[in-house]
């Protein structure tokens, strides 16, 4: 009796989790599937590279000025 009760509860829980899985929150799966996400990453990486080049050049210039002093 007790065993059947536990299996019944487990079955109900399993049914619930199965339902929860079908209603998954919406994510940008299409963006990943067709690879367009790489476009976004490339754009961001380019901007970041630009900022870093700017910072490194400024840092170099500053070092030069400090050495001349």
């Amino acid at each position, binding site marked *: 009796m007790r065993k059947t009760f536990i299996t019944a509860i487990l079955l109900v829980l399993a049914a619930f989790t199965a339902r929860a899985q079908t209603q998954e*929150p919406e*994510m*940008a799966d299409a963006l990943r599937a067709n690879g367009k996400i790489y476009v976004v*990453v490339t754009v961001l*990486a380019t901007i970041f590279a630009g900022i870093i080049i700017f910072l490194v050049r400024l*840092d170099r210039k*500053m070092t030069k*000025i400090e050495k001349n002093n």
Partner: protein
Amino acid sequence: MRTWWWKILCILLVGYTVIAGFLIPVPRLDILNETIRNLYFHVPMWFTMIALFTASGIYAIKYLRSGRLQDDIYSAHYAITGIAFSVYGMLTGMEWAKFTWGEAWSNDPKQLGSAMCMLIYFAYLVLRNGLKDEEKRAKISAVYNIFAYALMIPLIFILPRMVDSLHPGNGGNPAFKQYDLDSNMRLVFYPAVTGWMLLGFWMATLRIRLHLYRFKKENSFAFENN
């Protein structure tokens, strides 16, 4: 580039964040959806601000102990860079809130606390600009800096946790690490925090070096004239 290894580490870590932050899978959550990736960018802004304000406070104490105007330059420019990061944190937070809480500004305790903290530090800049005498400016702003730091802690960490807040980690609302900062997100989040902090310090040291140079130049000029 005096000591450059940490700058290279910074480039690697932030570069990794920008790339892996978008490519590594994240938990599927309601409301947040894909915006959970903002965690790698919004949260490190505040961590960097706190680190920079801490450095600023330490140099303020150092100035009060030593009386060296160089320490005041360190303190001031760490604070200025920290303020810049607080603005980034606030703007990114508002942009994120627009899509998850419904409004950019919902008078949330966390938003109000950080806004008050920002205003206190803005007043620090006003105070500095208002005083012409260098010694006086250094001394008064160092004392004010310590006061501002002591207020930042309760405004950002304590008060928002004592009332209901929408912000994760406050008012009965669990922080990310409790329910969804899974092992994949940690893989990006910790390098992100370290990388952004290093970037903040890099930006601050550039300002400091410029102003230390200017200070040295002005003082040597004064000596030559004497």
